[in-house]
């Protein structure tokens, strides 16, 4: 792939703090290599801002290889930018053309208040995990890996759910700001596996209800799946709806009878 350079106009959301009034700032960038990642392009912008004595743009990232879920912003109205199955950090400038204007905005939802510029507080996702996104085991020496047999199909499906990196793009892209894709990925990852059965019904009920404390109601648009860097399937939402209705029946029985 041959290297080209781009001249770009960036419109970036700047906001000093959670309660400050935000605005778009326009920046011109020249000679951006198409081999750069989107975040490297933002680094170039920030270095220029620092050199000019201005405050750099706050944008989160950590692993820069699409596995941690720290990065994420709306790029031209799409969560994580125009490419499919790509986190912001995996997006490359070759997806853009010379002379483009790129609008960069934070992920928005009532439960994702802006901390600064492009950084938003995604703590409600942690609240959902705390409500049941774990299995309780007695610790001790590590068990043999093949002690609990798991059928291959089940393992694959559970892994598809486990692939969720918790970036929040699904909420940001959803017209209802619903947290269904994230929550169902986290629930099903455990509900599908034998190790997750003991707490299955308690987990489902409590994670779904915690989700509903913070997020909107799913209307099955499917925008989340398109935005998701891990392409979590919408099927997980159906599994979770089914498990939730079951959990309501099971959880009202006496303890231990579920």
């Amino acid at each position, binding site marked *: 792939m041959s290297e080209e350079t781009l001249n770009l106009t960036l*419109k970036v*959301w700047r906001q000093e703090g959670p309660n400050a009034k935000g605005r*778009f700032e326009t920046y011109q960038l020249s000679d951006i290599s198409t081999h750069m990642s989107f975040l490297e392009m933002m680094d170039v912008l920030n270095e220029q801002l620092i050199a000019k004595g201005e405050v750099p743009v706050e944008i989160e990232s950590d692993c820069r290889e699409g596995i941690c879920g720290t990065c994420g912003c*709306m790029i*031209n*109205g*799409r969560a994580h930018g125009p490419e499919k199955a790509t986190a912001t950090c995996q997006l490359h400038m070759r997806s853009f053309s010379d002379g483009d204007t790129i*609008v960069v*905005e934070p992920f*928005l*939802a*009532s*439960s*994702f*208040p802006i901390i600064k510029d492009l950084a938003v*507080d995604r*703590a*409600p996702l*942690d*609240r959902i995990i705390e409500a049941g996104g774990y299995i309780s085991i007695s610790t001790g020496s590590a068990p043999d890996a093949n002690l609990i047999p798991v059928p291959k199909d089940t393992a694959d499906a559970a892994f598809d759910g486990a692939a969720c990196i918790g970036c929040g793009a699904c909420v940001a*892209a*959803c*017209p*209802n*700001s*619903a947290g269904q894709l994230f929550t169902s990925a986290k629930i099903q990852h455990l509900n599908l596996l034998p190790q997750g059965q003991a707490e299955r019904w308690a987990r489902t009920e409590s994670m*779904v*209800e915690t989700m*509903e*404390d*913070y*997020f*909107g*109601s*799913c*209307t*099955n*648009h*499917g*925008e989340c*799946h*398109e*935005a998701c860097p891990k392409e979590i399937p*919408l*099927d997980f*939402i*159906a*599994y*979770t*709806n*089914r*498990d*939730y*209705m079951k959990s*309501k*029946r099971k959880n*009202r029985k006496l303890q231990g009878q579920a």
Partner: protein
Amino acid sequence: MAQTMPRPGPNPVRKRPKQLPFPLNVYQSAVGRKWVMAVSGLVLLGFVVTHMIGNLHLYEGPLEVREYAETLRDLGVHVIPRTWMLWGIRILLIAAFVVHVHSAYSLAAMSRKANPSSSLDSNKRYASSQDYAAANYASRTMRWTGPIVLLYLFFHLADLTWGWLSDDWTRGDPYNNVVISMGNIGVAIIYIVANVALALHIYHGAWSMFQSLGVNNPKINNYRRHIAGGLAGLILIGNLSFPIAVQAGLIDQDNCEAPCGITAELEHEGEEAAQ
């Protein structure tokens, strides 16, 4: 030693209601409410399909339509008094309609709280012109097509069940009432527009139902969109055919070889009595 600072996260946008006893608590959660919306939608969908198929009697002629209407009143007559079964079905449909509308309204309010800038059919919170990646026209307009169908339902009842809109309306003569009502081009257009809205609503609703009920089976997953599209298309074609056929003169008194409507019935009875 590294230490994480406790920090107060964002507050919940929705206050958790006090749990009612099972099964009422199902309706207190959004996922449960969507389930109720799907089940009531399924009941209403069954009605719409049956209604459309039943109306095909219009193509047979006035006597057959009247006979069909009487058969509906006679349902279950061997066991319970006449029209009780019909009223039972009507009450079920009204109940389904009420919970369908209430769940839709309250869930839309919940989503607006979670995203104050969401408007009826679009996602205006982002400045950059947002083109949807997956949401289709039908899914984005559910909150428009729903109220349109609701208004249309009242219009339809006032027009053909209660006869409020025309002096020529005759109780017990559905064929003539349809011909008179839909013979008016304005009324025909109302029927056409409303049924397009209904078909759009069903196209997204029928697919959405599988998700909300958690009906997920790899064997049928690929067909869900087709099932929804097929149902919506069938209902659209069937229901649009009536106003169009009336306008085109295919369903018309003059096309009947015998006398039409209730007059025909009465004449018929008179002849029988005379014999």
